[in-house]
Every structure is written in structure tokens, then in C-alpha cells.
């Protein structure tokens, strides 16, 4: 319509064509961007977006250059220039038709099987779980610092649990600990244990927050873990190391109203250690 309006001298068609161009571009660009982003594995979405952006900027620059060239060259003019623009958008139609579904998630990885929607749901679920796992590990690292009574952690760690944890523990709000009290005393230990359980429940499985990961993460935060990890083994000589929970700890947990985790899930490695230390 632009080229037609320019050749006919019709202002209405010219302006209408311009607005229609805006409409078409607006409708086309979001699905194109989404298709690019969903064609690659999730860790490379940034790469895909950068490549997409690069080529669209190159297209912008070349479009300005080409149309201006067609407008200013001998034998050219406005009609020729906008016809060239029309040819460019025909190329855009062709390339858009060359797309496949455009909705595939994790293009390289999971091409086979499943509808687009189910794959999308699965992928988002995975991402969600990984994200939760990371959040929880960071929280656990902070709680670990809290156990050892680092000053900043002592102030902040109990609040990180949120209202759900304290509801679960049956003591809401948690009674304030005296300021000078040792960080390893029993209320704090129970808080840690409750968080532990809630985290496991949220994740649905214990392997994501294994003890090894926690130790590794604590190490990454610059916190030495040798004292905490070595302690249960040293204290319970002769017993199975680190996976056993003393009976006193179970009683203390029951007193706090928290459901006991199954022993098979390895629940309460943090709690056993803490309770042993406190009590």
C-alpha cells in the first residue's frame, strides 16, 4: 500500500500502508522472538536472543541503506524504494513459512515425542525445580552459618524461614532467643530441622539437597565445613556415621510437632548434628 500510495499520490493509502506495516511488524516480531528463544536449550537462551538481536539490528541498518539507495539512485524514486521494501517483507514471509512449529522447547535436546504444550510444561517444571533447589541451597548455607553463630547470620537466619515454617512447628511466632545465647541451642536447632523437612517436602526428593552438595556450597560461600561434618562421626563412635539419628533428637522433634521424616530419605542429617551439639 505504501508503494501504491506513493505511485498514485494518494496520501490515504500511503499513511494506511504505514500503519499496516506497524501492525504487521508488531504481530510478527513477538512470535519470532519466542521461536528463537524456544529453539535452543534453556541455558543458551541468552545466546539465541543475542544472535536474534544482532541480526535484526543488521537488518535495520541494511534496510535503511537499501531503501535510501533505491530512493536516491538514478531511475529510482519513492515507488521503487517502497517496492524494494515490499520485496524484503516478501522474503520475511518466506522465511517465516520456513519455520517448523516454532514452539519446540529445548530444540536440540527433546525433539522427539510429546506435544508442544506438554514439553513446555515439562521444561518449565524442570526449571522451577532447579530454581527452587538453588534457593533452598542458599538458604541452607545461611542456616548453616546461623548454626555456627556467625554474627550476620544470627540476626537474619530465622526470618528466612517465613511464616509457613513456624506454623508447621506449632510455635508462631517463635519465642525470642536471648541475645547472648549460643546459636546451637535447641529452638534454633528445631528451626533448622523444620526447614530441613519443609525443603525436602518441597523438592519431593532428597537427592537434590544431599549432604555433599550442602558441604560443597558452604565451601563456596567461604565457610569451613570440616568442623560440622566431622562432628557427628566423632561423637558417635561405633555407631553408623552421620545417617543415624539419636533417639533424643527424635523425641525433641516430636515435642515440636514436626512430622518425623522417613529414615530412608536420609532426613535430618542437619538436625541430628545440631541437636547433638546443643543437647
Amino acid at each position: 500500500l505504501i508503494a501504491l500510495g506513493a505511485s498514485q499520490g494518494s496520501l490515504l493509502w500511503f499513511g494506511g500502508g504505514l500503519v499496516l506495516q506497524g501492525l504487521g511488524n508488531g504481530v510478527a516480531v513477538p512470535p519470532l522472538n519466542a521461536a528463537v528463544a524456544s529453539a535452543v536449550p534453556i541455558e543458551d537462551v541468552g545466546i539465541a536472543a543475542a544472535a536474534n538481536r544482532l541480526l535484526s539490528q543488521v537488518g535495520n541498518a541494511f534496510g535503511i541503506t537499501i531503501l535510501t539507495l533505491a530512493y536516491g539512485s538514478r531511475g529510482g524514486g519513492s515507488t521503487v524504494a517502497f517496492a524494494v521494501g515490499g520485496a524484503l517483507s516478501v522474503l520475511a514471509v518466506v522465511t517465516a513459512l520456513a519455520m517448523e512449529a516454532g514452539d519446540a522447547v529445548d530444540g536440540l535436546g527433546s525433539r522427539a515425542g510429546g506435544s508442544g504444550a506438554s514439553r513446555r510444561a515439562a521444561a518449565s517444571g524442570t526449571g522451577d525445580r532447579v530454581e527452587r533447589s538453588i534457593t533452598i541451597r542458599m538458604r541452607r548455607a545461611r542456616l548453616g552459618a546461623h548454626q555456627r553463630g556467625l554474627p550476620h547470620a544470627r540476626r537474619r537466619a530465622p526470618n528466612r524461614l517465613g511464616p509457613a515454617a513456624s506454623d508447621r512447628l506449632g510455635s508462631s511466632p517463635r519465642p525470642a532467643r536471648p541475645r547472648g545465647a549460643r546459636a546451637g541451642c535447641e529452638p534454633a536447632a528445631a528451626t533448622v530441622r523444620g526447614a530441613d523437612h519443609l525443603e525436602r517436602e518441597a523438592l519431593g526428593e532428597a537427592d537434590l539437597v544431599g549432604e555433599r552438595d550442602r558441604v560443597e556450597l558452604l565451601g563456596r560461600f567461604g565457610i569451613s565445613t570440616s568442623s560440622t561434618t566431622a562432628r557427628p562421626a566423632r561423637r558417635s563412635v561405633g555407631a553408623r556415621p552421620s545417617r543415624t539419628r539419636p533417639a533424643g533428637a527424635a523425641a525433641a522433634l516430636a515435642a515440636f510437632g514436626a512430622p518425623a521424616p522417613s529414615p530412608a530419605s536420609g532426613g535430618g542429617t542437619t538436625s541430628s548434628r545440631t541437636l547433638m551439639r546443643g543437647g
Partner: protein
Amino acid sequence: VRDWRRSPPSSAAPRSRLLPLEYFSLRDFTAPILANGFMGAAYMGAFVLAPLIFLETFGSSVTLASLVMLLRTGALTAASLLGGWLAGRVGARPTAVVGTVVMTIGSG
């Protein structure tokens, strides 16, 4: 961590850190990128030329020219919402094809 000054291991081609070229073998990756480039070319070319044509060929006022260009940008903004909604409803490919066809009609 591999020492970057040494030559890469000869067994397998190393994965590029900046842009893995095997992605260009995916049509869902390459085609939308190219379409985006062409769309940008058509759109921005007209964006630069149209005010000139308004002023020189049609002899209209600067106000009218800028109003039409503003309307164009507003149409793009509103249509982006529509495009995203449509892409969620009917899929990315039909929406992109419809958008590019509308763009072609507008340009032609």
C-alpha cells in the same frame, strides 16, 4: 579448566562459547532470525523514507507526517500485545506468517 593458549583437543570440535554454530542447523532458530532481519529492514527503511516522502512528494506538514509515524508506532505497540497473545493461542508459526503477510500488504 582448559588453558586457552593451548590448541583445543583434536578429538572433538570444541563447543563455541559465543555462538554454537550447530544452532543454525535448526530451522526454528535460523528462520525466525532471518525473518526478523528482513522485517527490521522493511520496517526501518520505510521509517526513514516515509517522512521525506510526506514532506516532498505530498507536501504535507511536519505535524501530519509525525502524527502518522506516531500512529504507526502505536499500531506496532498494540499489535505486539495481539501478536504475543495469538502466539500463545494458535502457535508461533501461523502468527508470524500472518504478521509478515500484513507487513507485505502494507509495503506493497
